[in-house]
Each structure stands twice: as structure tokens, then as C-alpha cells.
């Protein structure tokens, strides 16, 4: 594995399968009473969050602590700090603190790569979400969740039909998932109003549909994305009601899905907008599992990046 995780493109298919099998092993091991492993003892992991995100931060924190790493939480809502200084100066502070890994969430696409390429720090950089670009560990935990739900496939998604529904244009979860799911052989369909699909999406290895209804019955996995209400002021869709009517996963649609099909959502959900409460809570929903799988997946990523000799350490 490369020594940073900035994008799904940093992972080969073997790397992905390795992460999934490691997460599965970790799940078995941590079923026991103590849940803690000594593997990353002595390593310092910094959560560098420029954007609020309690859930992702707690997930990474839990993962790091279960491997006995020291965790430092740095929450820099840097909008008041002048641009540029926040990223560079913060990074240099972390270097001085001896961070082995920096988990960064930032509002600007490419921020994780800037940090990794800058030469300001020697730590491993893990992208926890950069603007609308990527969120690799989310895609990994989604893939792990799907692999667990279809165990007979042994993480081979060839022929698996997956729909990603919602604001593709602004979604880093969608971008990472498209890269990852197609890497594993799945057939991915993006479902969205034309205003929420990026110009250039025709070059992606996916199918496009403007309608949720016409295809629903064929999907094995339906992944719903959160709709941000601020989008309405930029004319992406007329109002919530119309969006929900045309693209929401309501009960009618849920019932039309295949029996074994599953419903996913990266959270947080707008219950009643892109997904009805009943759909979110139904037996087809694996949304709660995604959270637990998130900790395991992030433990696997931290172990595989930091558990052995890192770049620069003597072997």
C-alpha cells in the first residue's frame, strides 16, 4: 500500500481486498471482552478536522484507540483564520508534535493532497473527506458492509448492481464509491436530476439515469446520498417536495426493491427527504451496520498504514 490514503486511486484491488479481510479479522478478534489491541502503541494519530464532523471523527478516534494509539483531536474551524496560514502553520505544528499520522477533513477539495505533497510534514496522511473530492474510508466501509451482506461473493462484486442516488455533483462519497465499487467489478448506476450530475460524468465508468422508478427492481444495493437544503437556492431543484417525490426512497419504492437488496446511507440522514423513516429503519437497511463497520474499516486502514515499518523507518 502507498504510504498515504488520499484517494481510492491510491489503492490497488489487492489493497482493497486486504483492507476488507483485515477488517473482517478485526471484527472477530474484537468481539472479546477487552476490544483493545496493542498494535499501534506508541504511535500518535492526529485528527485534523477543519470541518465539523462528530461521527467521522469519533469513528477514527475509536479505531485508533482500539489499536492503543495516542489520539490528539485538533479541531480548526479555520474560516476566521486567514487562508493558507491555517493549513501550513497547523501542519508544521503537528510535525513538531511528532504525529505519525494525520487524519484530515477539510472543506477544500485537494487539501489532503496539498498536505501530503507539501513537504511540511513527514506523517502519513489519511483523507477523511476533502471538499467534494473524495472520502476513501467511507467507500471502504461501504464496500465492507456490502461484502458482509453478500458473503458468498467473497468481495467479488462482478455483476452486482448498485445505485447511488442523489446529489452526485457535490458528493465526495459518490466519487470515492464510484472508483471503489467499479474497481471491485460492480455495475454502478448514478440516479439524479440532471442538475446534480457533473459535466464530464459521461466519462465515468457508470450508467446514468434521471429516474429512480424505472430501474429500482434491478438493484442489489441502493445507496442514498444526503441532500443539502442550501442547494435549493442555487436552482438545482425547485423545492424539497419535488425532490422527495421524484428521488426519495419512500415506502412504495422500498417495497418494489428486490427482497435481498439493501439500503445504505453514509449519514447524516434527512429523514423524510431523501429517505423515509420507514426505509431507514427497515430490515433491508444496513445503515446502522455502516457505523460499526466504519470503526473496523478504519482500524484496518490504520493498521495497514502504520502497523509495520512506515516509510523512513529502518526495516
Amino acid at each position, binding site marked *: 500500500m502507498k504510504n498515504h490514503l488520499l484517494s481510492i486511486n491510491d489503492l490497488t484491488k489487492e489493497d482493497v481486498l486486504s483492507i476488507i479481510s483485515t477488517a473482517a479479522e478485526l471484527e472477530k478478534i474484537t468481539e472479546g471482552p477487552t476490544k483493545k489491541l496493542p498494535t499501534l502503541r506508541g504511535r500518535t494519530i492526529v485528527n485534523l478536522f477543519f470541518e465539523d464532523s462528530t461521527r467521522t471523527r469519533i469513528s477514527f478516534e475509536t479505531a485508533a484507540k482500539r489499536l492503543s494509539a495516542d489520539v490528539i483531536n485538533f479541531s480548526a474551524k479555520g474560516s476566521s483564520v486567514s487562508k493558507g496560514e491555517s493549513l501550513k502553520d497547523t501542519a508544521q505544528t503537528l510535525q513538531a508534535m511528532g504525529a505519525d499520522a494525520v487524519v484530515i477533513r477539510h472543506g477544500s477539495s485537494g487539501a489532503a493532497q496539498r498536505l501530503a505533497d507539501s513537504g511540511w510534514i513527514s506523517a502519513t496522511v489519511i483523507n477523511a473527506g476533502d471538499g467534494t473530492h473524495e472520502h476513501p474510508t467511507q467507500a471502504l466501509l461501504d464496500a465492507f458492509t456490502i461484502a458482509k451482506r453478500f458473503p458468498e461473493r467473497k468481495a467479488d462484486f462482478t455483476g452486482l448492481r448498485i445505485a447511488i442516488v442523489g446529489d452526485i455533483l457535490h458528493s465526495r462519497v459518490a466519487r470515492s464509491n464510484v472508483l471503489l465499487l467499479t474497481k471491485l467489478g460492480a455495475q454502478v448506476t448514478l440516479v439524479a436530476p440532471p442538475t446534480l450530475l457533473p459535466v464530464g460524468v459521461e466519462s465515468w465508468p457508470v450508467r446514468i439515469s434521471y429516474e429512480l422508478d424505472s430501474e429500482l427492481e434491478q438493484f442489489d444495493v441502493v445507496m442514498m446520498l444526503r441532500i443539502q437544503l442550501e442547494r435549493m437556492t442555487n436552482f438545482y431543484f425547485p423545492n424539497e417536495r419535488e425532490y422527495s417525490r421524484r428521488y426519495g426512497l419512500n415506502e412504495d419504492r422500498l417495497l418494489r426493491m428486490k427482497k435481498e437488496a439493501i439500503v445504505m446511507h453514509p449519514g447524516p440522514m434527512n429523514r423524510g427527504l431523501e429517505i423515509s423513516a420507514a426505509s431507514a429503519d427497515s430490515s433491508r437497511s444496513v445503515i446502522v451496520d455502516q457505523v460499526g463497520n466504519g470503526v473496523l474499516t478504519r482500524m484496518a486502514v490504520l493498521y495497514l498504514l502504520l*502497523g509495520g515499518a512506515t516509510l523512513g523507518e529502518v526495516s
Partner: protein
Amino acid sequence: MSAVLETADIDRALKRISHEIIERNQGLTSVVLLGIPTRGAFLAQRIADILKELGSQVPVGTLDITLHRDDLRLRPPRPLLPTLLPVGGIEGKDVVLVDDVLFSGRTIRAALDALGELGRPKTVQLAVLVDRGHRELPIRADYVGKNLPTSSKESVKVSLLEIDNVDRVEILGER
């Protein structure tokens, strides 16, 4: 290089170990075999098969020790191997760890830590096919297939039918 044990030797050693396990644990009702992957796991399965022929059904599983190793930082991250506890678990049981070679003792130290994460056995015993000396920690085996004095510059290579297509133990390197 010289072959120290061949198929017949290995079979005999495992049979003897199996009898010793029966002797030392009156009745095998609380014994659980846990093999350390990769080859320890195959050996544990063979011992379980022998015990079954002798009339006792003993639960057998595997215990991966990778995450508890003390030498992780010396090499790039290693893939995890399977940990499969048998039905009934290890709580309050007499666990017999099975490995192919006992050397510095660090693998077994890691195995004891890994075991500790999973529960609290009543006792932990150790069965090894080969003890080659040069302990770095106060660890000893309860059941030994063969004592093999070696120099620390040599290495011991264990091949098993299940994965290497042949049963053999060899000593490699200068004396």
C-alpha cells in the same frame, strides 16, 4: 542442509504428543486446541484428528498473533491470518497452543497476549513439533516433538503436506 525429520518421524512425534496430552489432562473434556497459523494450525488439526481416532472429540481452532507481535515495526505491515475460535470458546478451558517451531519464545508471548484479549482460559499449555533452543523469554513447551540443538545462525524449515506438498523438517545454513 539436512533433513532431520521425515513423514514417519513427524507422524510418530504427533502421536506421542497426543498421548501425552491425554495423560496430562485427565479426560479431555475441557481441552481446546488452538493452532498458530500457518503451520501450527495444520498441526493442531492433525493432533485433533489423532485424538478423534483415539476416541476423543476435541474442539480445534486457530489463533493469529500478528497484532500482538513485538517486532511489527521492523517490516512493512503484515496481513492478518485467520483467528477462528471453536464453538464453546476458551473461557475456563485448558487451551493447548500448537506451533511448529519454538525458538525465541516471542511468538508464544504474543499468543498469550492474544489469548488474553479473547478471554480467560483455566490453563494454557504449549505443544511444538520442534524446540530449537535459544530462548529469549522465560517460555517453555509442555509437549515437544523433537529437541533440535541448533546454532543461532542456522534456520529450521518445516514443510507440511497440507501446504508444502511434503512432510519434512530441515536445518538450513552454516553450522
